């Protein structure tokens, strides 16, 4: 009977209201914060300056880095995405190396590498010139751009490859020339494929800029930390930073949504309001596109009507061939030079230092595995892997439930799940870790845990939101007819989920889950910020002792991260091939 009541919308709304009321009641009357908010810190000039201005400066820097790095990433993504399709092998190999290398190492380690080690590759004069030009800012911007570019390259490659050959043949045979085909067929179709994942990369890029803090760029997270340590206003600083990221994420999501609406194929005359808004907003782009097409029409290659080729044209043809050949040779030479430089740089490493510290990097036991230490001082790579395993296992359970909740018809379940997913996905992991470490566990739940657990729990809740989205995608992919058939044969909701939907959905999700595990493994590096002795922090501590070998240590951990992530991504690829619906018969 209860169940029937719960199917009514007003009951669901009431339940939502009750939950909200309970939360408000709890935090307003029952919960003892032992904390008085003082928002005046952001509006008044204190002993250490104006904190509001500090945050605004941070916001300014974050937006600047985000915009620049997004542009860099898009350009790199297009170049390398196309290069991955090149038939000229050296270009293909180079692009593949770029994509695999930068996708399989943590951004944090990349930033450390660019910041601490890379300058030493240059002679002193150039290095000092570099330092004069706001070096940290550009390292963060270009570093984020290169990192995101590697992800975008893969998306763009997949998007272009997804266009069926038949469509191109059809468009040529219907008389369109290449530029028209490009603009009318290839780009719109591949864009439709690309835009949603590309959009989430833009969003990720914005969140990733929070890591610029670690190399001394004063963006939002940096300002937040500064406010924290100058005023000890934990809540205010955290809430301000979180709100800033929320607003930024929501604005990006809104723009992406408009783009999506714009690209949707709709019957003429039935456009909804959002489409009209999008149409007016993107009208300039439309004019630009048709203008280009108009211009290009006049520069199209005219078919040769005469049998003879004029000497000038022949010369042009020969020289363009020569130019292409020269470019190819130049490219190979440049690659050879880069390889030579890398090998000679690696050869000049102090391998003794690496060798002596490798055990500590793999199994950090500090100091000598003191009994008061966490897990007898376990850390380094072993700690990072443990963290990734625990957090993915935990987030799988939460993600499964929340993902199911997100697809539920019941509002009282769906809305809280949606809020959770969207909220967590809108803020950077760095902030989530801060929240859990300083506020959620400690002040709200009064649980005192080791930083390792705080970071692991934070990562669990963070990745749960992403897994929930994957689960939702998996569930949505199951044909509706199956659910209806299950319902008709008398199965309850949970039976349908357990016996019909989830087994199929999970199989489809497996590669994505392995990908998530790789992301979790790489993101354990962020726990460094609260002092967990995982791989990055162990490297940091070793650097702190040695002081003069950052190049060696950061390269070593980059290689360690790469080896593990790359092996896992190879495994994910194999899984994907093995589980693709064409080759596997789903047995139940």
């Amino acid at each position, binding site marked *: 009977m209860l169940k029937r009541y719960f199917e009514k919308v007003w009951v669901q709304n009431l339940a939502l209201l009750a939950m909200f009321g309970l939360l408000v009641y709890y935090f307003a009357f029952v919960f003892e914060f032992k904390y008085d908010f003082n928002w005046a810190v952001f509006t008044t000039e204190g002993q250490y300056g104006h904190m509001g201005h500090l945050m605004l400066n941070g916001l300014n820097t974050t937006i600047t880095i985000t915009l620049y790095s997004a542009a860099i990433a898009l350009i790199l993504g297009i170049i390398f995405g196309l290069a991955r399709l090149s038939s000229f092998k050296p270009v293909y190999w180079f692009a593949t190396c770029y994509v695999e290398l930068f996708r399989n190492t943590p951004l944090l380690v990349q930033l450390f590498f660019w910041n601490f080690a890379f300058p030493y590759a240059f002679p002193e004069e150039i290095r000092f010139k570099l330092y004069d030009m706001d070096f940290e800012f550009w390292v963060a911007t270009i570093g984020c751009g290169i990192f995101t570019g590697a992800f975008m390259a893969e998306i763009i490659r997949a998007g272009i490859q997804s266009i069926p050959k038949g469509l191109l043949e059809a468009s040529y045979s219907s008389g369109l020339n290449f530029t028209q085909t490009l603009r009318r067929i290839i780009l719109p179709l591949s864009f439709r494929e690309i835009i949603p994942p590309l959009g989430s990369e833009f969003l990720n890029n914005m969140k990733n800029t929070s890591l610029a803090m670690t190399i001394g760029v004063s963006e939002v997270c940096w300002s937040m930390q500064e406010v924290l340590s100058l005023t000890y206003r934990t809540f205010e600083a955290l809430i301000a930073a979180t709100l800033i990221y929320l607003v930024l994420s929501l604005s990006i999501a809104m723009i992406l949504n408009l783009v999506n609406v714009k690209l949707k194929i709709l019957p003429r005359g039935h456009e909804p309001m959002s489409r009209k808004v999008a149409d007016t907003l993107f009208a300039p782009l439309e004019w630009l596109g048709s203008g280009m097409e108009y211009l290009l029409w006049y520069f199209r290659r005219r078919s040769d009507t005469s049998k003879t080729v004029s000497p000038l044209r022949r010369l042009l043809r020969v020289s363009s061939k020569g130019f292409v050949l020269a470019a190819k040779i130049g490219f190979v030479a440049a690659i050879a030079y880069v390889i030579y430089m890398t090998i000679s740089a690696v050869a000049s490493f102090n391998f003794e230092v690496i060798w002596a510290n490798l055990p500590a990097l793999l199994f950090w036991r500090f100091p000598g595995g003191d009994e008061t230490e966490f897990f007898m001082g376990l850390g380094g790579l072993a700690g990072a892997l443990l963290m990734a395993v625990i957090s993915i296992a935990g987030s799988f359970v939460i993600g499964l439930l929340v993902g199911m909740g997100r697809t539920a018809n019941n509002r009282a379940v769906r809305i809280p799940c949606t809020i959770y997913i969207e909220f967590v996905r809108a803020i950077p992991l760095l902030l989530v870790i801060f929240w859990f470490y300083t506020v959620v566990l400690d002040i709200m739940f009064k649980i005192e845990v080791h930083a390792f657990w705080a970071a692991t729990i934070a990562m669990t809740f963070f990745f749960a939101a992403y897994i929930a989205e994957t689960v939702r995608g998996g569930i949505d992919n199951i044909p509706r007819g199956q659910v209806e058939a299950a319902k008709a044969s008398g199965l309850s909701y949970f039976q349908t989920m357990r016996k019909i939907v989830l087994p199929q959905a999970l199989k489809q999700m497996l590669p994505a889950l392995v990908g998530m595990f790789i992301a979790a493994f790489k993101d354990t590096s962020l726990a460094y910020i*609260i002092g967990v002795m995982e791989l990055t922090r162990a490297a940091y501590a070793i650097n702190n002792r040695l002081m003069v070998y950052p190049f060696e240590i950061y390269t070593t951990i980059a290689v360690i991260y790469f080896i593990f992530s790359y092996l896992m991504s190879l495994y994910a690829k194999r899984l994907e091939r093995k589980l693709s619906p064409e080759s596997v018969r789903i047995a139940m």
Partner: protein
Amino acid sequence: MRVLKITVLAALLVMAASVAFAGPTYDRVMSTKVVKAGLSNQGIPFGFINDKNEWVGFDVDMATEIAKRLGAKLEKVVVNNNTRISFVQTNPPKVDMVLSNMTHKRVRDEKIDFSITYFFDGQKFLAKKGAVKEVTDLANLKVGSMQGTTSIVNATAYLKKLGNANPKVIGYDGEVAMFEALRSGRVQAITTDSTILLGYAAKVPGQFELVGDFISDEPYGIGLPQDDSAWRDAINFTLQDMWKDGTYMTIYNKWFGPDSAYPFPMTEKIEMWP
């Protein structure tokens, strides 16, 4: 309905958890015989990891001695510049005391309590040998400092006073990053408490030197939980006892004496109550 029930249950559980909190620090330490000390592990020579993978330093020795005198076992907890205050500020505190080359400041004292000053330091600048001849040379240099400390604020104010209206002070995340910035030439000087600078200068002997005067007073205090006078007294008396019987100077000379790697002559006396 089921959802509601679960929500209510969860809320009740949280409430129950929030009621149970520990008593005052002094009673707890005396009954459990364990004292938790927050220590830095990257502040040479106060608390750092040496090449034998041991956690050593002036602060570590001080904490060990204090714990010994209280008859308790020492439990070392890593803190950094961003967490050293909040770890004693939380309720219950995550650590019972923080020794992390932390300056006693009035703003900080509003949040936590401090012991009497147990170390006297001041902020200085470290630069390449010969790079800075006059103090005024500092004004237009690019300066590095540490994020989460008041050194940035002090340095900015000082450079302004020297005549640079728009000084460039960059706050790095931790000591390594800051020193690396100086070593690679990214900044021409770095600034923080002089003893820490000495520790780094000793890593590459003969290349760097301290320049200029002390630009601030940095009296170090042990950070203690707010409003626990029994605990604060216990720590203060222990410090004074250590000073009286010479243990303090033994530890001091081990790290800062004339034969140590970071010589820093003792010029003051810790506060002694008759």
